[in-house]
C-alpha cells in the first residue's frame, strides 16, 4: 500500500507578486488598470468641474437649429435654412464620397505601380520607383494644395467658354474643364419606368445585379465543365454579352439621354459638376496613398519565395497561371493587413479637405457649425465618434476579407 501525499505546498509570500512568473503579469495588469482608471477619473472630473465653473453644459440640441450657411458640394438636399444636423450629414456623406473614391483609385494606382516596379523593363521600374519616392515623401497636405492651385491657376474660368458657339470650346462639345471644377453631361431617362430618376437608376442597378448573377453562373458552369472534361470553355464572350446586352437594351428602352452642361450667365447650368476641391482632394489622396499601396503590393509579391514560382514553372504552368494560381493567392495575405491601414489613412486624411474648402464633416460640423454655435466639445465628440465608427467599420470589413484569404497552417 502506498501513501499518497500532496507535494509540499509553498506558502504565499508578498515578494512572489513580483518574482513569481505565475503572479507577475497579473500584478502588472492590476497596476496598469488602476493607473488608467485614476487618469480617466481625474480627466472626467476636471472636465465637469471646469464646465460648471464656466457655466457651460453639454447638450446636443444645437443640432436642431438652422445652420444659416450654404454648402456648395452636396449629395443630399440642403440649404441655409436646414439644421446643423443636416449640415453634418452633408459633410459626412462628402467624407464618405471622397474616401470611397480615393480608396478605389489609390488601390488601382498602387497595384499597377507595385507590379510594374518589379518589371524587368529598366525604364518602367525606375519610373515607378521615382513615383513612389516622390509622392510618399512629400506631405499629402502639400499635394492637395499643389493640385488645387494648379487647377485654379491653369484652367480657364467659365467666362472663357463664352462666345458665339460655347459648345465648340468644350471637349467633345459636352465636357468643360474650368477653374471651378469639371462639368460633365448627366445621363437621364426620357421614357423611364418611373417618374423619379433615382427609381429608374434602381432599375438599372437591379439589371446589373441580374447580369452579375448570370455571369457567376456561367463561371460556375465553366468550372463544372472543366472538372468533368478537363477543358475549360472560353467564357469571356458570353460573360461580356451578359453584362452588355441587357444593359444596352435597358438604356434603349428607357430612352437614355444626356443633359449637356451649358453656359448660362456667369456659370454652367445642367449636367454634373465635380467641384475643383473634390478633384484636388481625391487626386492628391489617391496618388499619395497609391505610392504606399505600391510598396505593400511589391512587398507582398516579393515575400513569395522564388522557389514557388520555380516549382510551378517546373510543373509546366505558364507565367500568367503561376501568378494567378500560386503567387497572388499567397501574396494577398501579406498585402491585405497593411492595405487596411492605408484605407484608414485615406479616411482620416480626407479631413484635410478644409484646406481647399471641400465641405467634409470636419469642415461642416467641426468647422463652421463649431464656430457658429461655440459647441466645441459636443462637435469634436461627434467628430471623433464618426471617424472612430467609420474606421472600425472599414477595419471590420477588410478583416473579414483577410480571414477568407489567410494561409491555413496547422
Amino acid at each position: 500500500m502506498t501513501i499518497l501525499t500532496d507535494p509540499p505546498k509553498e506558502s504565499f509570500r508578498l515578494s512572489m507578486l513580483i518574482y513569481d512568473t505565475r503572479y507577475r503579469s497579473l500584478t502588472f495588469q492590476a497596476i496598469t488598470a488602476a493607473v488608467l482608471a485614476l487618469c480617466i477619473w481625474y480627466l472626467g472630473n476636471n472636465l465637469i468641474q471646469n464646465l460648471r465653473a464656466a457655466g457651460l453644459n453639454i447638450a446636443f440640441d444645437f443640432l436642431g437649429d438652422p445652420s444659416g450657411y450654404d454648402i456648395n458640394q452636396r449629395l443630399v438636399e440642403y440649404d441655409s435654412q436646414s439644421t446643423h444636423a443636416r449640415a453634418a450629414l452633408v459633410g459626412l456623406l462628402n467624407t464618405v464620397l471622397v474616401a470611397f473614391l480615393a480608396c478605389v483609385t489609390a488601390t488601382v494606382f498602387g497595384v499597377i505601380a507595385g507590379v510594374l516596379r518589379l518589371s524587368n523593363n529598366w525604364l518602367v521600374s525606375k519610373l515607378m520607383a521615382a513615383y513612389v519616392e516622390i509622392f510618399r515623401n512629400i506631405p499629402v497636405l502639400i499635394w492637395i494644395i499643389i493640385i488645387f492651385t494648379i487647377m485654379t491657376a491653369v484652367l480657364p474660368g467659365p467666362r472663357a467658354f463664352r462666345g458665339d458657339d460655347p459648345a465648340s470650346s468644350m471637349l467633345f462639345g459636352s465636357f468643360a474643364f474650368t477653374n471651378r471644377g469639371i462639368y460633365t453631361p448627366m445621363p437621364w431617362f426620357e421614357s423611364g419606368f418611373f417618374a423619379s430618376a433615382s427609381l429608374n437608376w434602381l432599375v438599372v442597378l437591379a439589371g446589373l445585379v441580374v447580369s452579375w448573377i448570370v455571369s457567376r453562373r456561367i463561371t460556375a458552369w465553366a468550372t463544372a465543365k472543366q472538372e468533368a472534361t478537363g477543358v475549360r470553355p472560353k467564357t469571356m464572350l458570353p460573360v461580356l454579352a451578359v453584362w452588355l446586352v441587357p444593359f444596352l437594351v435597358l438604356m434603349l428602352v428607357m430612352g437614355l439621354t444626356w443633359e449637356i452642361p451649358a453656359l448660362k450667365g456667369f456659370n454652367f447650368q445642367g449636367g454634373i459638376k465635380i467641384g475643383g476641391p473634390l478633384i484636388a482632394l481625391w487626386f492628391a489622396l489617391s496618388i499619395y496613398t497609391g505610392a504606399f499601396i505600391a510598396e505593400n503590393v511589391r512587398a507582398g509579391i516579393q515575400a513569395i519565395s522564388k522557389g514557388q514560382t520555380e516549382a510551378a514553372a517546373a510543373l509546366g504552368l505558364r507565367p500568367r497561371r503561376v501568378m494567378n494560381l500560386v503567387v497572388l493567392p499567397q501574396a494577398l495575405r501579406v498585402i491585405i493587413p497593411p492595405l487596411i491601414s492605408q484605407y484608414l489613412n485615406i479616411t482620416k486624411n480626407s479631413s484635410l479637405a478644409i484646406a481647399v474648402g471641400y465641405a467634409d464633416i470636419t469642415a461642416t460640423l467641426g468647422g463652421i457649425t463649431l464656430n457658429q454655435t461655440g459647441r466645441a466639445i459636443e462637435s469634436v465628440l461627434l467628430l471623433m465618434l464618426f471617424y472612430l465608427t467609420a474606421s472600425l467599420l472599414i477595419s471590420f470589413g477588410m478583416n473579414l476579407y483577410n480571414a477568407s484569404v489567410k494561409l491555413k497552417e496547422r
Partner: protein
Amino acid sequence: MSDLNYDRQIDRSKMQIGSEVAIEISEMNKWYGTFHVLRDINLTVNSGERIVICGPSGSGKSTLIRCINRLEEHQAGRIVVDGTELTNDLKNIDKIRSEVGMCFQHFNLFPHLTILENCTLAPIWVRKTPKKEAIETAMHYLEKVKIPDQANKYPGQLSGGQQQRVAIARSLCMKPRIMLFDEPTSALDPEMIKEVLDTMIELAEEGMTMICVTHEMGFARQVANRVIFMDEGQIVEQNEPEEFFNNPKSERTKLFLSQILGH
C-alpha cells in the same frame, strides 16, 4: 553526407537502360554575368539511366540540372530533351517541362493548397485532365509515397520528409518520363532522409530515368548506374559507381571522395 546502408533488397529487374536517348547535352556553356558557371558540358543520358551528380558546392551541379528544364537559360551549346531542343520557343519549353519532373531541396510545395490540390493543380491546368481523374491519379501517387491519409492537410502540417514525398508525388502526377532531383535530402533529418530515399529507390525500380544531385553516396553506390563528378563548372570524371568509388582517376575526385567518405 552519411553513407546509409539499405538492408532491403533492391529489385533490379526493371532497371533496364534503354537504347533511345532521353537527354543530350552538347558543348553547353553558361555564364552568370562574367562568371563562367558551366564549361563545355557534354552529357548523353539514355532512357532508364539513374545518374548521380556530385561535387563540391559551387561546382555547377544544380545549375546543370536546372538548365535541363529551363529554370536556367544556357548561352551556348545544345540541350535536346526527348527529341525536342530547348530554345526560346515557349512551345518547346512547355513540352519539355511536361515531360520532366523536378524535386527541390526545399520541397517548394504550395502552402495555400492542400496536399491533394498541390498534386492536382498542374494536371488540371496544364494537362487539362478532368478533376475526378486528376484526383484519382493524385491519390494513386500519394498511396505510392505512403501518405494518402494526409491528402486533405496543408503542407505546413507535414514533416519535412512527408513534404518531400508529396513533392515527388506532385511531379509524378504529371506522368513525367524523366525526373530531376536537386539535393532532395539535404534539408532533412537522417530518419527522414531514409524515407525519401526509399521512395526514390522505388521509382528507380520502376525504370524511371533519373538525374540526381545528391551527397548520399550510399544511394549512389546502390542505385545509380553512373556517377558524375563536377568541379568548377566542368564534368571532371564519370564512371560506374564501383569504379568511381574504388578507383577514382583524377586527383580532384580522390580529394573530394576522401573528404566526403573519410569521416
